[in-house]
């Protein structure tokens, strides 16, 4: 993570602008990094894709935390929103339209699943498939 510019940007942003801690899911970072290596995905995308996948779970954690953390509820909601849109805009800026589409479809499905008490997700598979189809 220490050299991932996208993660560092979010970490610094949170430190400078909010009273909450950066929520970082190392397991998610390792999960997608290993999968990209295994699938021989072009290394030029590794940093952005690893950050996008990991940050999506950070965003979800902030929204989860918003329920219990009354004092910082606003920050938790806004940070979740901020991080999600940051990911989408970075994917767009880098021309990764197919990944952007996979993100939209999979995260929408995840939201539906959460509303139906189902924790399954196909986000990782869909990102990898989108990258392989490029």
């Amino acid at each position, binding site marked *: 993570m220490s050299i991932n510019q996208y993660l560092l940007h979010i970490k610094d942003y949170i430190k400078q602008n909010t009273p909450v801690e950066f929520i970082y899911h190392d397991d998610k970072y390792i999960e997608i990094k290993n999968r990209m290596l295994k699938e021989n995905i072009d290394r030029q995308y590794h940093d952005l894709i690893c950050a996008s996948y990991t940050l999506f779970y950070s965003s979800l954690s902030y929204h989860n935390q918003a329920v219990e953390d009354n004092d910082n509820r*606003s920050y938790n909601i806004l940070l979740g*929103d901020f991080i999600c849109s940051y990911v989408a805009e970075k994917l767009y800026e880098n021309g990764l339209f197919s990944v952007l589409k996979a993100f939209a479809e999979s*995260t929408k499905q995840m939201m539906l699943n959460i509303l139906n008490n189902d924790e399954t997700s196909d986000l990782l598979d869909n990102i990898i498939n989108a990258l392989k189809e490029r």
Partner: protein
Amino acid sequence: MDLASICNVNIKKLDSIIKSFIDIDSLLQLSHKEQLYDLVFSSGKRIRPIFTVLGSYFGEYNEEEVYKLAAIFELIHTASLIHDDIIDQADIRRGKKALHINTGIYDSIILGNYLVALSSEYISKYDFEKIYYDSFSLTDLCDSEIKQQAMLFNYDITFNEYISKTKNKTALLITASLLGGAKLANVNEKTLKILYQYGINLGISFQIIDDILDFTQDKNHLGKPNGADLMNGNITLPVIYALKDKNISEDIKKLNKNSSTKDFNHCIQYIADSNIILKSKKVSKKYIKKAKKSIRKLNHDKKQILINILDELEKRTY
């Protein structure tokens, strides 16, 4: 102000597309769908989608595409309202219970996320990426809101900081909606620049009027309690002017999130009854004038619609 009539927008068609977008997922529970319909269709003004359609009038447009983009802007706006109501602890939205009161906070957050993801899905499906992402940054909007959190109950806010906040909070999405429609219709760069200036100035004026109505309008029309902005620590233009009024400034400065309703109401009533409202209206009119000035060099047969909107905005009472 019947914006749809002024702009010749087919609201039935727009609503039908919005409904079809929300209807698409069989996995979305019926109760959630109904709550989303309620939020979108119950007396919402549809300002953003109407502006998307309006923007398209300045070029060659495909009506089906324009209305789809317009619907996407309304969904994005609705998602932001859902999250805003939780942040502002607003129990009422447009005269009805806010979504989070019905569903609980977590489900409400997730429903807001669902709408953003749904919008993104449609942006990809219809190849609107360039038009949408080049017109609007949700990240910038969130950034502005995050930075505002540190400004709550901060009575040192300046006029310029208020205008900048207002631009980010309201004017940018209205402008993006307008430009989105215009870009979809391949409007030329010169006209896009004119429409940008128009949208920003109109958006600022619109929000100032909203901020005034928060003090002056009865809560039945407002759909939420009077003075809700001040109670949430959101320092708007009438408060900035009130802080310069010796008769009330000290009382306002004492207000914080733990103050009593009585103390808030005292300040809210003072502002509502004072010439502070008139002074704030003058600023709103100044931005309407700026919007009018920005379109002076626009040479197009639909220009009159832009002028008519500003004339109606000046009369706006709800």
